[in-house]
């Protein structure tokens, strides 16, 4: 049973379609929600929380129809908003306890639970301080504590590492990893691709309100073009090798260190490289397979559709 199953969701802001038939499924673990600015990531999260009305479509949470669950659905979901979302003048523990109470925890249990989750996110020493005195990283962790206080099955994180320094960011990602280990499902909306690479096994790419791609990172990497670094030895400075690659329909980009960066279509492999090297009258001295980065995959997904990615 999938944790979240989204079927053909449409959201309209006036005459503008913010989401256009979004469909995807989340089995569990951490899922990255990627897309340039204005792609509809935050709108999708808000739609899942009922904060924006659906024009059409529906989604299931833990196999139950969201329409049947009603507001009770939000007891199973935790939300870290992108924007501020904290009340000045309130202490960290009071704020988290209030959110716990709003999710149905009795007063005493909410306070106890607030202390627990604040300790979990590393804010136990600052829990009695007013939230306006918190640094950006502390605020993000406090928001995460607020999202965890009622022990939800699904966490919706909207840009959780936004504005954080590298150490704070790594701590936040570490927390997210641990949350996934606890059996929670995390939907991470971000434009920081490294965060997705570090945390997520699956990505959903949104662009202009539509799902551009939604697969596991591993599968996608396997199915896409392969990248190699090759050192060719032969007569000349490699012009013959570059020409042979061109004839084979590959991209061969010479680098300053004397290596060629080869991009081979899916289906081609190392054997083809060695064959082309021989045809060019030389041999391969060094051969390294380059991991395809998510960023390249992301840009390729957008470019396939002839779309601009300037907003990223």
């Amino acid at each position, binding site marked *: 049973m999938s944790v979240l199953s989204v079927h053909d969701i449409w959201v309209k802001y006036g005459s503008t379609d913010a989401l256009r038939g979004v469909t995807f499924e989340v089995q569990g673990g951490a899922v990255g929600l990627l897309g340039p600015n204005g792609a509809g990531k935050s709108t999708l999260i808000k739609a899942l929380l009922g904060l924006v009305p659906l024009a059409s479509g529906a989604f299931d949470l833990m196999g139950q129809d969201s329409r049947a669950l009603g507001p009770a659905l*939000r007891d199973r979901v935790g939300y870290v908003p992108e924007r501020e979302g904290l009340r000045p003048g309130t202490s960290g523990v009071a704020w988290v306890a209030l959110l716990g*109470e709003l999710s149905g925890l009795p007063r005493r249990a909410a306070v106890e639970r607030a202390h627990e989750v604040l300790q979990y996110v*590393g804010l136990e020493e600052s829990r009695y301080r007013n939230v306006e005195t918190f640094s950006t990283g502390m605020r993000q962790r406090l928001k995460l504590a607020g999202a965890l206080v009622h022990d939800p099955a699904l966490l919706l994180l909207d840009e959780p590492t936004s504005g954080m320094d590298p150490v704070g960011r790594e701590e936040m990602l570490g927390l997210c990893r641990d949350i996934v280990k606890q059996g929670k499902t995390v939907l991470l909306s971000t434009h920081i691709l490294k965060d997705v690479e570090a945390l997520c096994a699956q990505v959903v790419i949104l662009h202009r309100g539509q799902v551009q791609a939604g697969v596991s990172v591993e599968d996608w990497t396997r199915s896409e073009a392969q990248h190699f670094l090759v050192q060719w030895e032969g007569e000349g400075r490699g012009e013959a090798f570059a020409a042979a690659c061109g004839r084979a329909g590959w991209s061969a980009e010479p680098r300053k260190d004397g290596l060629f960066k080869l991009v081979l279509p899916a289906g081609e492999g190392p054997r083809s490289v060695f064959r082309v090297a021989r045809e060019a009258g030389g041999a391969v001295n060094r051969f390294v397979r380059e991991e395809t980065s998510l960023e390249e995959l992301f840009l390729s997904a957008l470019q396939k559709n002839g779309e601009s990615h300037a907003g990223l």
Partner: protein
Amino acid sequence: MPVYEQGYEVYEGRRNPLGSRWKPLFREEILPYFKKRRFVFLLVLALLPWLYGVALTFLHTQLGDADWAKDLVTKLPVVDEKLVSKLLTNSYDLFLLFIVAIWVGSGLVARDRKDMTLDVFLGRAVTSVQYLWAKGAALGVFLLLFSFLPTLILVIFQVGLTGQAGWLVEHLRVLWGTLLYTAIGPGTLVLFMLALSSMARSPRVVGLAFIALVFFGDMACGVVYAITKVSAVWFFSLSRELTALASLCLGAPPPYASADLHPALVALFFAGLATASAAVLWARFSRRGVLR
């Protein structure tokens, strides 16, 4: 040790029913005001005119039969519907009522919009109706201090000091009339403040808008009335409508010598204001425009 290695605990305790989720919001809205000395002082100030009512009750019940005080006491106003109507809508209390409405009411929704906590609250299992109920109830509790609560205390004093319920039976309208006034007058004011507060992100802007609409509305009506001498222009003055409403609810004479406000006009004013406020709230919350 990384922070996330400190262990995550699963919550297995019970949860309160969905219908009670508004209560924490109500509590969080109301409690901070009791920590503000100026605000508490303002509430105490609002009760001062009612001390006059309590004093009259004391004099009539305790000294009414004393030979030496009889003449003096009979000249004093008696505690009845007319007096309660005057106490409810004396200009001093109405002014304080509006101050409290601005102080508490302007931030009801606007502060959550400003702090961006509205998404967080409505992202929990709290419906918009529960949210608005919690916020409205918080303002309503404070407005009760200007309406039903002091009346109730006065009635308790009256019955307690005489030791019999005869006065209450004779003046039962004091209770139900005040209750009706509270439900319609301050009740509509709560809806109006909620609607106004949902339209801005800044409590200050809401406060200024209220001042512009209510105080300047009153002033404009006064100016137009001075020129035209047609009291129908009071139709646009909230304070005068509240005064007229109290008179109608308590069966007291019209508040102003030249008043010719028809009960239907008063009813129309409050029905119109309540409907418009409810429509704004419905539009803002059902279409989620309030979250943008």
